[in-house]
């Protein structure tokens, strides 16, 4: 990968972030009232204090100035205070971000572990019974809304069978191995919900990407040389067929994040998704804005990462 490509690609991410911040701020500015200046418009606050607050928050400045102020503050890590808990927004988010990332990462791993073998096997014998079943199951899988799968899992595994807890515990008192066991048990269902949903949509992409590669001449050549079919499949087909899947995983990120928000809410996982929902219900605008922006940043960064990974995996791209 050439260094100029790397720099160019990273430079391209900055305008996207700026554009997203402009979109977010425009939405906020178009909204009725002054969502960020809640106190300044509160009738219980004396007028003198209100005026001082308005001046401090810059509510009477022109819109582009307010946007710049907001942007600079965000860039400096000053994300304001939560209306509800009076804590720093950045502290709140930092407390919860690791949980969300762990949930997202492990379900992504689960999705790939399910989707790749199934997709490859389906592509090896297209239109076979296995292919048809895999296709139908995948279709049903991504038609099931995330919140309904979550609810079904709770009904079966927590209520009927009583195997798994359905409320995520934050302060696990156990130590050592027992801690891992509790964490494992309470993470299975949230991870499975997102992982299987994402896996179901990936299966079809893996399959069609494999089918594209299987028909290429170099695969025929490899077979003609007398290499065993398993070796051809793993060394020649899968290795190249998986490259486009990297991009597809990245493209689906916005949808996956939606899934994590719902899952965190159902299982009471203390991540930024459930923080978003609770702040919306509590009308806590600074937190809502910040969490939305964090999600947007995650999408941009992970897309950037996927693009760089793609170039590393497939050197033909960097020629441009």
């Amino acid at each position, binding site marked *: 990968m050439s260094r100029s490509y790397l720099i160019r690609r990273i430079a391209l991410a900055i305008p*996207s972030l700026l554009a997203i911040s402009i979109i*977010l701020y425009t939405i906020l500015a178009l909204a009725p009232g002054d969502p960020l200046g809640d106190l300044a418009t509160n009738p219980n606050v004396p007028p003198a204090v209100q005026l001082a607050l308005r001046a401090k928050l810059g509510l009477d400045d022109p819109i582009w100035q307010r946007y710049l102020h907001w942007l600079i503050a965000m860039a400096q890590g000053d994300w304001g205070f939560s209306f509800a808990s009076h804590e720093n927004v950045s502290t709140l988010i930092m407390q919860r971000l690791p949980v969300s990332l762990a949930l997202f990462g492990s379900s992504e791993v689960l999705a790939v572990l399910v989707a790749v073998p199934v997709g490859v096997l389906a592509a090896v014998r297209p239109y076979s019974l296995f292919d048809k079943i895999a296709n139908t199951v995948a279709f049903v899988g991504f038609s099931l809304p995330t919140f*309904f799968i979550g609810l079904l899992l709770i009904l079966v595994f927590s209520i009927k069978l009583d195997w798994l807890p359905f409320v995520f515990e934050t302060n696990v008192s156990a130590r050592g191995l027992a801690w891992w066991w509790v964490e494992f048990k309470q993470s299975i269902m949230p991870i499975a919900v997102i992982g299987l949903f994402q896996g179901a949509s990936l299966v079809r992409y893996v399959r069609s990407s494999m*089918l594209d590669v299987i028909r290429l001449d170099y695969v025929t050549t490899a077979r003609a040389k007398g290499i065993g079919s398993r070796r051809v499949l793993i060394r020649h087909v899968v290795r190249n067929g998986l490259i486009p899947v990297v991009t597809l995983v990245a493209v689906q990120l*916005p949808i996956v994040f*939606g899934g994590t*928000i*719902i899952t965190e809410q159902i299982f009471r996982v203390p991540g930024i998704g459930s923080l978003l929902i609770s702040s919306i219900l509590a009308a806590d605008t600074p937190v809502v804005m910040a969490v939305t922006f964090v999600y947007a940043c995650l999408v941009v960064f992970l897309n950037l990462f996927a693009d760089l990974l793609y170039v590393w995996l497939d050197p033909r791209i960097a020629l441009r």
Partner: protein
Amino acid sequence: MSGSIPASPSVEAIGPAAAAAPRARAPLSPTHEAWRRFRKHRLAVVSLVVLILIVGGVLAGPLLWPTPIDAIDFAAMLQGPSWMHPCGTDALGQDLLARLIYGGKISLAVGVAAMLVAVFVGVLVGAVSGMASGRIDAALMWVTDMFLALPQLPLLLLLIYLFRGALERVLGVQGGIFVLIVVVIGGLRWMPLARLVRAQFLSLREKEFVEAARALGASKLRLVVRHIMPNAMGPAIVAGTIEVANAIIAESTLSFLGVGFPPDVPSWGRMLYDSLDYVQMAPHWALFPGSAIFLAVLSINFIGDGLRDALDPRRVI
């Protein structure tokens, strides 16, 4: 996305003998031909029947099952299915079947309306972008990519959170939230359609028949409306169908998270949300609306899959 199943048998792969066979039959109108191909997709046909049953049930339901949706009966709280209440009752003893029928109307209406918004914006952006090329095209596609990178659900939540109050004051509680949900869902889902339509336009506008029409002096508008658009509609119809399912999921998700419809408007998602606290005692309350959403979404998705086979002229079925 006609290319998503690349190993589909195509005319070249099957060979002239097989390709000639259908030609021997009397020529069918395009609609007939599409229907003939659609019927080959068994699951899609089954889904069509299921969807017709759901829509019919939702529309005719109030006539067949005149129980009001808000008749509170504390003597019959959280009851399972029985002859009196075929789908059981909720925590206030309200009849769940009546609420399901009512909620279906809302959920399906949101789905169709949001799809129309998404298709309108998507086709408009895609068509302008595909015809204009150059700077306008680049700018529109940049905007499209930008929207694609936005995190959908957080933004949906943010928009509804910020604008809900104002619209409710103008249009009333029910009307306000309906318009808001439809516009916001539609407004965040047009991008795949725009890209699809643009790709169709880019390839179609270089085809010989368009060139011929241009040579005969057809205006740009006529080229688009009479020649390009009808040929680009197949994939757009498929994407639009699936968009209905996506919009139903999006609406249910919002209601499920407690930011969609208010409790007196029991959309399917809202019923699920209300049932959450009682899921241990009364699982039927969650299962019926959940299955309704699932069935509607699954059948719409299968119909979309069938339409994809039916409307793609390159595929031989």
